[in-house]
């Protein structure tokens, strides 16, 4: 079936089977491999995308459900000049990255939080990341990076 939606600001039209997930659609049909499959049951968050402003595990969304929606993936997160966004730069600067497989999902979770909550506490940041598993970092430097981004954006206003 043909599925039409907007991804990273671009309207796309994809002919794909109706029984695949949004994650498969992104990875296999649009070659957007930044979203990862870690569990395929919505436990790990490595596949997280922002769908109509909400953080979603794309492995739990059937591809046809994406029709008409607006989706942001990790490939759509960057600074206006194409370089890393402030959040991505803070992930680098605060040492939030080790093996990196969970990081696209973490960035999406961080962005989704900051979209609705400009000044989260560390506890609120931890709550917002509770659906994203990381096995390397112990989360602390990820929380640092999101906290620093929130502060940076407050200053910029």
């Amino acid at each position, binding site marked *: 079936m043909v599925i039409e939606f907007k991804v990273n600001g671009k309207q796309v039209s994809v002919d794909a089977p109706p029984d695949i997930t949004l994650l*498969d659609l992104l*990875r*296999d049909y649009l*070659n957007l*491999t*930044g*979203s*990862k*499959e*870690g*569990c*395929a*049951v919505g*436990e*790990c968050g*490595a596949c997280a995308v922002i769908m109509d402003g909400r953080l979603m595990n794309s492995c739990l969304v059937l591809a046809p459900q994406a029709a008409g929606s607006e989706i942001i*993936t*990790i*490939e759509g*997160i*960057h600074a206006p000049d194409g370089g*890393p966004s402030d959040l*991505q730069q803070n*992930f*680098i*600067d*605060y*040492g939030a*990255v*080790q*093996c*990196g*497989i*969970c*990081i*696209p999902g973490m*960035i999406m979770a961080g962005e989704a939080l900051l979209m609705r909550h400009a000044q989260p506490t*560390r506890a609120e*940041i*931890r*709550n917002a*990341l*509770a*659906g*994203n*598993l*990381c*096995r*390397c*970092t*112990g*989360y*602390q*430097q*990820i*929380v640092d990076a999101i906290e620093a981004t929130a502060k940076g954006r407050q200053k910029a206003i």
Partner: protein
Amino acid sequence: MSHFTNPLEYVGQPARRVDALEKVTGRAKYIADYKVPGMLHARCLRSTLPHARIVRLDPTPALQVPGVRAVITSDDFVNHGLYGFPVKDKYMLAWQKVRYVGEPIAAVAADSPQAALAGAQAIVCELEPLPALFDPERALDPDAPQVGPDRSDGRHPNLKSDHMLVCKGNAEAELADCPIVLDRRYFTDWQEHAYIEPEGVLAMPTPEGGIVVYAPNQSPFINQGNLAMTLGLPPNLVRVIQPTVGGSFGGKDDIIYESSAQAAKLALITGRPVRMVFSREESLIASYKRDAMHMRIRLGADPDGTLRACWFRGILDSGAYASETPFTAWRASIHAMGAYRYRACDVDVYCVYTNNGYAGAFRGFGNPEVCFAVEQTVDELADLLGMDPIDLRLKNCLRLGDETAHGQVLNESVGLVECLTTARRLSDWDRKRAEYSRQNGAEKRRGIGVAAMYHGMSLGAEGADNASGTISILPDYSVDLTSGLTDYGTGSRTVYTLIAAEELGVRPERIRIQRPDTNTAIDSGPTVASRTTVVGGNAMRAAARNLRHTLDLAAADLLKCDPQQLIRVGESYIGPDEEAVSWEKIVDHAREMGLILSAHGKWSAPKIEWDHHHGRGTPYMAYVYGAQIAEVEVDMRTGNVQVLHLWAVHDIGKTIFPQGAYGQLYGGITQGLGYALTEQINYRDGYIQETNFESYLIPTSVDVPEITGQFVEAPYSYGPYGAKNIAEPSLVPTAPAVANAIAHATGRRIRELPMNLERVLLGHDLQPAGSKKPVEAGLAIAPR
């Protein structure tokens, strides 16, 4: 030793991970992200019985399934694909018998993952059940079902390793003479590595009849050796390249070698690229784990808290195949008595075969298991004597000049006292310990507990311990590094970059480090045992120094002076005429002189001796030390344990990449918290019950408290700039620190891991339950 006095420009200074940008943008390619034209998808048929004879195996029906291109069994490998180190006991695909649920029997390559699964399901495989062995304490009974291979030396075939001994004095006599003796049993459970990237490989045939394998393994050269041996190819036709690895923690050795061989054989048969990617379920069912360990410890002391004797017995249940567990058993034996002085010590640890999955390397490698036992027993002794647990540890812990239980005199780099006292101060231990000791009856009770540890550096007496690095200057004046040791998220590529920058006197941004490739890197042994910084770092340092020597000669020639007269300011060279000459000009001049701008460096660890028969010697060149303090709140109605804060102070020698070292510390502690509280593998009659993250519970961001970390830098003279290591030791003391905090809060000693709700609340397990269903459902899921 000028490097301890000269200020360091890059080593120990703030730095960024060299591969962070590609990871935060989603551009880093992991194995599941690779797609090449004509690529097939591979899938294994796996055993659904814990122990059985393969009475009939007909793979041909798989070839009738649309889309299936090839199917293989053990018959397709040389010597049926027998491999393994230190024990050759496993086959790339099962031969004649299966010994655990999930063992691969055949592999299929097809146009799609769905067709590959259908092909695997079409294979005719008749299994005749054999009596199975699940209890490691019964493994050596004369009538126990035989799981291990036949052996000719008359010893029990289920004995997987020798008895690993540490012997000092006469421990029985010393214990008999001790006024206070504690005799305790402990159990630590299996632990899954739970790297967020499941296993996968991509194999591509080459026009010359060879194979290139992209494998997220820890040790590409071991993989290459196994591939050459089991495929019957000369090693120079087998190339293993490591792509970005999504976590490993010891877990991507054997299982990846096996997948590599399967995919490679299918690729050679079909002439097409073959990718095999596991689902999470397949990963949990098929991959090896941390061993489960059954322990008994007897600790003898004087009433003043002086430790006198330690007697320790440990059995590692390491399942159906050896993998690296004989080495795990050895490391467990060396650390079983903890970081303390004793007059007498008697340790005996071994591992056995069972039909409970199989165990292999996992961060800590035996030490987290034994540390859980000894650190609780020491704590209990403090309780019994009415002593402060830190005071008791300070009274007995290893210090500079002490002799260990093995007979090794520690003549440098022993920072444990400082770790303990710093953690005590940072955590406000004395106030909290007193305050929480006065609680009673509350529904939620707080406690604070400590654990100490030491951990032998690198391989020790396990084997040859050396590494190589190469460095060269490219035409664009960038600097290229290669190492045979791998970075699976640990940060070693950044460590090597900083070391090379320091030695060459160039900015790290100028340096690029290759991913390991058996065609270009030099075999540097396995990437295990937290050895990359010290062994690989020294090699990289030597390589950079050799290149620097060449450049200094060129600079001296250009500036018409002795090399000793040269000064560096930033990257530039300054000679006697005090004019700065750019590094590029020096490089150009070196080329004009005909000098070769590449270099190699090699480093071998100091020689050590271990007498396995007498349990005496020098097991490791040196040790790292650490102390962790956990503060917990226990809900007395549910048994829930919330860790409120954790303080960790570790002596890791000189820190080379501080941000990365802290990341290792926090991450290791987090794995330790999962090990302590939630991570449980239940093999019910050999069937794992936890097949995804909804039942195998690794810590989330809300389970992990804020962690206060600090490093004590007791320099080690053989380490690069005095560095030691951090990767594994970070998780070793976490579980016992939490256990001791729980005991402080509740008065209850939990002697089994994980310390789940029922063990904390009731003091025992609930009725065991479980079935084959999770495995059967898990193996029916098509991977992507």
